[in-house]
Each structure stands twice: as structure tokens, then as C-alpha cells.
């Protein structure tokens, strides 16, 4: 068995815990860090420390945030009446890139998944109901992923949580990806695209 000096071994071990990093990649990154200038490795170390020190979840929407509330929640130019419900903070960045949405968000930090034992009590659904009750929301857009768990979560929120509020509840459309070929579309997606067809 190859054994390196203790600090190298510790670093390889820690890097190997990161998602998508196997033992070989961990070893390569560790030796790369050993070679780079001190200033570069310090910058990486500080970035990690800063991340843990300064970033927490927004108290209102559960997006990642530097303060108590995230930049989107405190932005007065945002439409206060529309709420977009997403699974993870990274979904916000995907929607923001479209430039087509100007409301605020609510991050569930997960999705209902019976096979993993994740029920509605383990994600931020109760907090969503509190927000809708307190913030004069007129529309909630459900932007969970278009897979079985995402659909189940959207159906649960629409039917069991938001129905009593009598507000507009919409779901992200699904259909064919732009630039794709029709012949490769699966039956479910193509069926949805047909159901949601639009008059030209």
C-alpha cells in the first residue's frame, strides 16, 4: 500500500469525499495543490472558509444568502405577488438566466420521494403555506423537476396546500427541448407536448 505524508493523505481523503471525485482524482488534485503557489492554495482555502462563515439559508425563501435574507427577497423591484417554487437553490440560477421571470422564489430544499422516505414534513412546504398566507401572493408557479418526484411534489402542493388560498397556481410547461429531434422524444414527453400544443 502506498503511503504519503500524513497531510497529503488527509487532503486526499477529504477531497475524495466530495461528490464526483474518486480516489484518483483526489490524488491528482492534492498533488496539483502541492505544486501551485502558496497564494493560489490560500485563495482556495479562504474561499471554502468564507463560504461556511458567510453563507446561510435565507430566512424567507431558503435560497443561499449572505445575510438573513437573500438579494432577491430584499430587492424592491421584484414582483412581490408572484412566487416561483423550486427544489434547490441552484434551480434559481437556471431560471434567472432566462431573464423571463421577475418575481420571487421559494426553495423547498428537497422533493417528496416515498422511495427515499422523504415526506412533505421534511421539506419546506409548511413554510411555503405560511408565506402564501402572510405575503399577499396572487400566483404560485410550481417549478419542480418534471420527473416523478417533482410531479408528485407539485401535485401535493397544488391540491393539498394551496387549494384553500384560492390563488392562481401554475405548473411549468413540459414538452420537447428546443433543438431536439422529434423521433428521439419519449412517449410521455411527446404526449405532453401534444396536450400543451399552441395555436399559431
Amino acid at each position: 500500500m502506498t503511503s504519503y505524508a500524513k497531510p497529503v493523505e488527509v487532503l486526499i481523503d477529504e477531497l475524495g469525499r466530495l461528490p464526483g471525485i474518486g480516489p484518483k482524482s483526489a490524488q491528482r488534485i492534492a498533488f496539483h495543490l502541492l505544486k501551485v503557489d502558496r497564494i493560489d492554495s490560500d485563495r482556495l482555502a479562504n474561499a471554502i472558509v468564507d463560504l461556511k462563515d458567510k453563507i446561510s439559508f435565507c430566512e424567507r425563501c431558503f435560497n443561499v444568502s449572505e445575510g438573513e435574507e437573500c438579494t432577491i427577497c430584499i430587492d424592491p423591484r421584484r414582483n412581490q405577488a408572484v412566487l416561483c417554487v423550486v427544489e434547490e437553490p441552484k434551480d434559481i440560477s437556471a431560471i434567472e438566466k432566462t431573464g423571463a421571470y421577475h418575481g420571487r422564489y421559494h426553495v423547498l430544499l428537497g422533493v417528496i420521494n416515498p422511495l427515499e422516505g422523504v415526506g412533505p414534513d421534511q421539506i419546506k412546504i409548511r413554510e411555503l403555506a405560511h408565506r402564501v398566507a402572510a405575503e399577499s401572493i396572487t400566483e404560485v408557479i410550481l417549478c419542480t423537476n418534471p420527473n416523478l418526484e417533482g410531479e408528485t411534489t407539485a401535485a401535493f402542493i397544488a391540491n393539498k396546500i394551496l387549494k384553500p388560498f384560492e390563488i392562481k397556481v401554475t405548473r411549468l410547461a413540459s414538452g420537447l427541448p428546443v433543438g431536439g429531434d422529434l423521433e428521439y422524444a419519449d412517449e410521455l414527453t411527446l404526449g405532453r407536448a401534444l396536450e400543451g400544443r399552441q395555436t399559431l
Partner: protein
Amino acid sequence: MTLYREDAVVLRSYKLGEADRIIVLYTRTRGKTRAVAKGIRRTKSKFGARLEPSTVVHAQLYEGRNLDIVTQVETRQVHASFRRDLMRYGRAAILLEAVDLASEEAEPSPALFKLLTGALRELDRAGNPLIVPAFVAKLLKLEGVQPMLEACVECSRSDGLVSLDLSRGGVLCDRCRSGGFMSAGARVAMQHVFEGHVRHVLDTTENSVAEELQSLSSIMLDQHFERRLRSSRVAYEHLS
């Protein structure tokens, strides 16, 4: 590189790396198989919605060192109602989790494959709550732990049967009782299931007996697998 084709049910999947998923399949002739579907999480993935849990597919895979790789998938059966009806999806999840727990890799059981695909099809078609108890009864029979229902497992009395305890092997009379309460109606319905009259049970069982069988089936699954099924908790506590 050995290519093979299989009919399979998608039991579950979990994320792998940036855009891949590990798909757990229950195949007709190879039993449980774990395979990687590369790029499936990308919006332009060729797999699309074909490898969602509960879908029945005809898949082409090649054997890898640890995990097989999915190369092509054709849909055989999509259970569209599971996406609209929370409780049906919850019940489907119980069937999928039970098969996942009951099966081992490379130990095929065509009978279990047939049982699972049939139960999912029926659940999608009619959403009958008795599908889960009927499925559990048949699963236990396949596992070789069919409970004795005709007489008390302790004293052999055939009257005054009041409870079911899988750990003791079947029903018990009022003197030997342990486990969960079982009414005469529920006992007869379960006997019919074991005798192969599932359709009759699905069509004629009263709601109160159906509810009792549902709770008994949960207890039997928990006792058999020696743990609480994760999907039962979510399905019965939150989705109903």
C-alpha cells in the same frame, strides 16, 4: 463487452455524478440489476422519461465491471396515473420498495416480475387500495412465508381466530393471540388471494375490510423485512 436486452421494471434511481443516474431495474430473466444511465438528467437526454420509477421498459444494456450501462430503452408500459394521483404513486412506491428489498442481484424470479408488472398495471388502471395487500400476500407466498390462515398456529383451533402474527406463522385464536387484529372478513379475503381469486377479492371486498387488509399488509411487510418500509410511512401518513 457483452450486450443484452431485457424487459425490466424501474424500481428506483439515484443521482450519480453531474448528469447520470444509477437505475435499479428488476429484470425478467436476470433479477435485480443496477445500471448507469449516462446523461439522463440532461434535458436533451435520449432516455427522457423512460427510466422513471415504475415504468416497464425493454432495455438494451452492456455488462460493465461493477455496474451495467443502459444504452437504449423502449417503453412498454407508462403508468400515467401515478403522476396525477398522489395515493396511487404512494402505493406504487410500496410495491417497488418491497421488490427492491425482497430481491437480490442476479437471482431471477420471473414470477415476481410478473406479479410486480401485473400489480402496477392494475394500480394504474383502477387505483384499488386492495392491490397492495393482495400484492403483499402473493409476495410472501413467493418468499416462502405464506401465513397459515385456516387454524390457530399454536393450538390448531379453527374457531375464534382473531389475530395475525407473521413472526409466529399465521393466525391465532383468542386464547393464543398476538400481533395485529384480523377480522373474519379479512381472513377470508386473504385466503381467496392465496387461492388465486384476486379479481374476486378486488371487486367484492368492503371498504372497512379493505382498510384492515391495508394496515395488516403494512405490518406483515415490516415484520418480514424487519424494518418499516420508508414508502409506507410517506404514503399512508402524508399522501392519503
